């Protein structure tokens, strides 16, 4: 029934000028008939036909005659199925074998491709992790002076969002908290310097080297000094664990990263300034946030302050977040608060009892001054 179908293809033959030509192929009753554009006719009986699939597309069907003196070829997808039925199915066996081979080859190609893709992804991921591990560990070997230099440059590059606060009530209150926590900070000793900024933002951040920025919005939102101490301990931990400098090292390009491994820190400083200008230096990943929470819990307990105060502050923001002006800043830079509260409380329980030592500051006075820095308190 298929006999008579025509397909566009071509042929190889020594009888054709140039030994090849485009041709119209027709499946006749006894064989494939081919006619070139110049009118030359050829015929290849089905019984003498050797089929093969290949070519640039992998889908070209070749029909070779005896001794390959005549080869007909066609890329039409309908050609091979038509050959199966041509000449009362004389080529059915060959067509079936070729179809099965092609299907097997396609499956193998797909598997090879997927395997190659998997290897590529694994190699890429391995290289990325290896590079991040190497740069992160080379950071550990750098002196703290580098952190301080990077922190100083970053501080100069970042806008403060408000005026610096010099109100002695606020400065002394924050100093007392930092002084209480500082002796219990881990790692290499560093100088912590807190800048209080008058802005309705419930947030604080720490730059490499221990430069901390604390907004009056956070002091206003906190219900107890221990909650502010918890936040400060968390930010100090970012500095002692050198999260900022590791973040910069991970953002380095390959060349700057290799230079860092060789001890050249110029790329590190350049990237720090770049990240600081885009406000990216103070955001940390989940792993770093958790590590800072854990370290803050340890520092708070060692300093005689309730280690769960940080979790209480998180709970306060989560509960009243919508009512606390500026709370969105903290929520945006410190995600997944619920999980972290749970973890802080679990860690605190594991630490067991601690020796509480009360703070001397008048928190109501601090809160009043946070709302209005420079406030003149009426004498009793």
């Amino acid at each position, binding site marked *: 029934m298929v006999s008579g179908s025509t397909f566009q293809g071509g042929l190889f033959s020594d009888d054709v000028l140039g030994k090849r030509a485009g041709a119209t192929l027709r499946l006749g009753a006894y064989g494939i008939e081919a006619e*070139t554009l110049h009118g030359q006719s050829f015929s290849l009986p089905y019984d003498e036909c050797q089929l093969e699939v290949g*070519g640039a597309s992998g889908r070209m069907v070749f029909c070779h005659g005896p001794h390959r003196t005549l080869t007909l070829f066609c890329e039409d997808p309908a050609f091979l199925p038509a050959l199966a039925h041509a000449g009362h199915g004389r080529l059915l066996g060959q067509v079936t074998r070729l179809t099965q081979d092609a299907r097997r080859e396609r499956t193998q190609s797909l598997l090879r491709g997927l395997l190659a893709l998997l290897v590529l992804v694994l190699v890429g991921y391995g290289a990325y992790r290896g590079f991040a591990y190497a740069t992160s560990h080379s950071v550990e070997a750098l002196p703290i002076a580098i952190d301080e230099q990077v922190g100083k440059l970053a501080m100069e590059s970042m806008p403060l969002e408000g005026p610096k606060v010099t109100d002695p009530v606020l400065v002394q209150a924050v100093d007392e908290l930092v002084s209480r926590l500082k002796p219990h900070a881990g790692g290499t000793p560093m100088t912590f310097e807190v800048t209080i900024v008058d802005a309705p933002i419930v947030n604080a951040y720490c730059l490499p080297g221990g430069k901390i920025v604390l907004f009056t919005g956070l002091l206003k939102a906190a219900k107890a000094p221990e909650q502010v101490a918890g936040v400060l301990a968390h930010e100090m931990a970012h500095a002692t664990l050198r999260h900022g400098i590791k973040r910069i090292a991970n953002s380095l390009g390959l060349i700057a990263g290799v230079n860092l491994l060789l001890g050249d820190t110029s790329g590190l400083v350049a990237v720090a300034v770049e990240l600081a200008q885009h406000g990216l230096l103070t955001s940390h990943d989940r792993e770093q946030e958790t590590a800072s929470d854990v370290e803050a819990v340890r520092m708070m307990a060692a300093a005689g302050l309730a280690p769960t105060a940080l979790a209480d502050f998180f709970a306060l923001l989560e509960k009243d977040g919508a009512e606390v002006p500026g709370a969105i800043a903290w929520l945006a830079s410190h995600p997944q608060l619920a999980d972290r509260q749970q973890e802080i409380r679990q860690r605190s329980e594991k630490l067991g009892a601690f020796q509480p030592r009360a703070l001397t500051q008048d928190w109501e006075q601090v809160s009043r001054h946070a709302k209005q820095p420079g406030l003149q308190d009426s004498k009793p």
Partner: protein
Amino acid sequence: MDAEIRNRPSFANVRVRLRAGEGLIAEAGAMASMSPTLQMRARMAGGFLSAFARRAFGGESFFINEFATDSEGEVILTQPYPGDITSITLQGTGLMLQPGAFLACEPGVKLGVGWAGLASFVGSEGLCRLRATGSGQLWFGAYGGIIERELDGELIVDGGHLVAYEPTLSLSIGLAGGIFSSLFSGEGLITRVRGRGKLYLQSRALEGLAGWVNSHL
């Protein structure tokens, strides 16, 4: 139409004389000079999608130039790099061209894009090939001399040397030897060409020149 390839092989160019009613299609930017009696019109080859495929995947220009005349005139076509130019006449057959090789063709030749496969991409031979089919004369160029081979079997070609081949040939990419030999012999990946058909190689590879120059910078 009369055509002559001159200044072969290093600085080959094609001079095509067109008579009234004849036309020529050439790669954008290939025209070095033309008679004032010729009209040149830029157009997308085969519509927007085809032209986009030619540009994005075939390594050719988005536009092609069509030359035509009501009287007669000549146009001289060149390629951007030094090397030979050759021509073939398609008679209902086809030719796969490496990106950048196409120079010009008669209007009876259709230009499309054929998928070359991921292996080709890995072997630095590109994801796609320009596919010329139909009837008419086709000119293409190479960097260096052009070596024409009539194949009935298998041939191993180093990366960057394959210029054009008939679609009856199949290509696969492989290592030049074992992993050690491939890395240190300077051959890296090779192209294995199998089947029956004609292929055209270039005696120099642009990547080889770029690598050599780069090593001296």
